[in-house]
C-alpha cells in the first residue's frame, strides 16, 4: 500500500509517498501564484492508494482531490516522531509560519505556539533580508557565519527591519555583520516561541529554514540544548501527512 502526503506551504509544495513505512518518493516544487496547479503538477504520474493534504493550502486541495486534511502542526508532530522517535520538542520554521510543538510522553501533540499573522521570524523574513543585502540565501547564511560580531536589528516587523537594514548599510555597517544580526533576530524570535511551551529538552528542527546552517548553529547556542536536524527538514510535514494517510487506510486512525 502506498500512502501519500502533500504539504502545500506558502513557499513550497512538498510530496512524500511511503510504502511500508519507508519513503519511496519525495518531491518539491515552488508554490507560485497557483498553489493548486503546483500541487497537481507535483502529484501527476505519482502512484498512491491514499493521500492526505496538509499545509496552508490543504483546504484548497481537499476541495479538488476530495482527500482528508490534517493541520500542519499535527503533520509535523507525526513526521518528527517517526523520523526521530525520542522527539519531544519540534521547531518548524517555514516560509510564512513558525511553529513550536511539544509532544507528551505518549508522543501526542500537547501544546503548540505559532507566530503572529505577520511574516516576522519566518523564512520569508530571511529571504527579504538576504535580498536587501544582495545575497543569495546560501551566501547569506555563509556570510552571517563568517561574522564575528552582529549588528543589532531591533525591529521584528519585516517591513521595518528592511528599512533598518538599509539604513545600517547606508551608515557603512559591514554587510556580513548585518547578516548575522538578522539571523540572530529570527532565532531569538523562534526560540522565545519554543521556550514558552518547552523550557528544556532536545529540539527537532524542521522546515525550510532548517537548511540554513547559521540558524541551526545559533539555535543550539541560544538554547544551549542539542538540536537535531533531519536529512530533509522540509519534507517532515508531507511525511507526517503520508503516515496519517497510511493509518487511515489501515482503518486505525492515529492521534
Amino acid at each position: 500500500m502506498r500512502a501519500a502526503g502533500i504539504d502545500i506551504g506558502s513557499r513550497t509544495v512538498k510530496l512524500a509517498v511511503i510504502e511500508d513505512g519507508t519513503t519511496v518518493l519525495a518531491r518539491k516544487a515552488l508554490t507560485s501564484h497557483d498553489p493548486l496547479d503546483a500541487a497537481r503538477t507535483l502529484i501527476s504520474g505519482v502512484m498512491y492508494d491514499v493521500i492526505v493534504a496538509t499545509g496552508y493550502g490543504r483546504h484548497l486541495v481537499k476541495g479538488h482531490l476530495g482527500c482528508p486534511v490534517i493541520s500542519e502542526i499535527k503533520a509535523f508532530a507525526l513526521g518528527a516522531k517517526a523520523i526521530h522517535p525520542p522527539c519531544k520538542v519540534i521547531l518548524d520554521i517555514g516560509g510564512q509560519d513558525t511553529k513550536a510543538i511539544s509532544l507528551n510522553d505518549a508522543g501526542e501533540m500537547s501544546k503548540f505556539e505559532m507566530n503572529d499573522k505577520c511574516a516576522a521570524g519566518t523564512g520569508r523574513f530571511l529571504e527579504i533580508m538576504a535580498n536587501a543585502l544582495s545575497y543569495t540565501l546560501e551566501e547569506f547564511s555563509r556570510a552571517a557565519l563568517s561574522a564575528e560580531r552582529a549588528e543589532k536589528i531591533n525591529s521584528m516587523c519585516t517591513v521595518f527591519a528592511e528599512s533598518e537594514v538599509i539604513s545600517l548599510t547606508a551608515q557603512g555597517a559591514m554587510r556580513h555583520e548585518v547578516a548575522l544580526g538578522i539571523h540572530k533576530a529570527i532565532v531569538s524570535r523562534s526560540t522565545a516561541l519554543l521556550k514558552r511551551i518547552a523550557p528544556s529538552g532536545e529540539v527537532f528542527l524542521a522546515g525550510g529554514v532548517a537548511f540554513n546552517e547559521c540558524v541551526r548553529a545559533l539555535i543550539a547556542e541560544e538554547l544551549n540544548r542539542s538540536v537535531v536536524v533531519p536529512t530533509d527538514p522540509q519534507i517532515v510535514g508531507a511525511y507526517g501527512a503520508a503516515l496519517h494517510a497510511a493509518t487511515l487506510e489501515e482503518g486505525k486512525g492515529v492521534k
Partner: protein
Amino acid sequence: MSNYIRMWSALGLDLKAHDALLSILGSAYQDIFLSQKNRPEGMKYFDFVMSEVHGLRIKELMDAKAEGRIVVGSYCVFVPEELILAVDGVSVGLCAGAEFNFEGAEEVLPRNLCPLIKSAFGFKRGLVCPYVEASDIIVGENTCDGKKKAYEVLSPMVKDLYIIDLPQMKSDTGKTLLKEEYKKFIAKLEGVSGRKITVETLKKGIEIANAKRKAVKRLAELRKADPAPISGLDALLVNQVFFYDDPLRFTNSVNTLCDELEERVKKGEGVFPKGTTRILMSGCPMAVPNWKVPMIVESSGAVIVGEESCVGERGTQWFTEDKSETVAGLLDNITERYFKIDCAVFTPNPSRIEHVKEMYKKCNARGVIHYSLQFCHPYIVESGPVEAELEKSDIPVLRIETDYSQEDAEQLKTRVEAFFERIQPG
C-alpha cells in the same frame, strides 16, 4: 429600507457609507448565520432584529425620544441598565465590532490600538452608527487605558459624553468608589431626563434587567446538552442583541427560543451531531458583527457551548437583589452586583479563572479558546496566567490574539484545527 432614509438623514448619517455598511453586514449575515443547518425556529426573531438593527429599532428609539424618553448609549457592562430603565430611558450598546473606516479612526488615534476602540471611532467619524447619533448621553467608563484616553478624544465629537470612573481593585475603597460613581450617574440621568428615580421606578428597572438576565441564563443552561440544541454563533447573536433590543420583547423572544430548545433537548436533537467537540470561549467581548473566530471554530468541526465574556456570562451571570425599600439600599444592591464583574482591568482578578473553570465543567467543554483583541493589554497579559492555571487543572487552552480583519483567518484556522486535533479522542 427606503422608509428609513429620511430618518437616517435627520440623524446626520452619511447615507452612501451607511448603505455600503448595511450591504456588507447583510451578506456577512447571510453567509455566517442563515447558511447554518438545523437552526431553531426561534432564531427567526433575531434574524429579524438584525435585519432591522439600523431600521425599525432606530425608529423605536426615535419614537421613544418623541415621547420624551432619553436614549443612553454605552460601551461596557459596568454601565447599570437598571438606572437607565429607572428614568424610563432606553439603554443601547454602541457599535464597535467591525473594521469600518479605520482610516478615519487612525486620523485621531494611534494605529496600534484595540480594534474595538478604533471601530467605535470609525463608526462615529464615518457617520454610520444611528445609535450614537440618536443617543442623548453617551456613557464612557474608565476600564482600560485605551478606552479611558480615547474618550477624551471622543468627547468633542458627541453631544454629551459622560464618564463613569471605575475602581481597579476589589477592595472596600474600590466598592465605595463604584457606589459614589453610580450615585453621580443617577444625578446625571435625572438631570438629562427630567425624571426622578424612586424606589418604585428603580425596582421596576431591576425587575426588567433581571428578567433579561434570567432568560439568557436559561439559554446558557440549555447549551449544556449534548448534542447542543443551538450553535455558538446563534447563542452569541442572542447575547449581542441583548444590548440593543427592547428589553421586554427580548426577554420574551429568548424565552420562546428556550421553550423550543427544551423540546430539542428532550428529543435529543441538536445543531451538530452528539459528541461534537465542545468549546468554551473566554476573553474579550465580541460586539456585533464580530463573528470571525466563532465562525472559524464552528466551521472546523466544533461547537461553542459558552462565552466567558462581557458579551456572554461575564455580563449577565449575576442578578441584582431587589430587597430594599430605599433608593440608597437598592443602589447598594446594584453596586454589589456590578462589583462582582471580573473584568481583566481589575488587579488581581482571581475570580475570573475560577469562573472559567466552573463554566468549563458546567458546559461539559473539552477545551477553552482564550480570545484576545489585539492591543487589549488587560486580557492579553492575563491570558498567560489564565492559560497556565487552566492547563494545570488539565483544561486544554488555545490562546488567540486577533483583530477585526480577515487576513489572518487561515492562520487562525490552522491553530484552531490543530487544537481540535489535540483534544479530540483517537
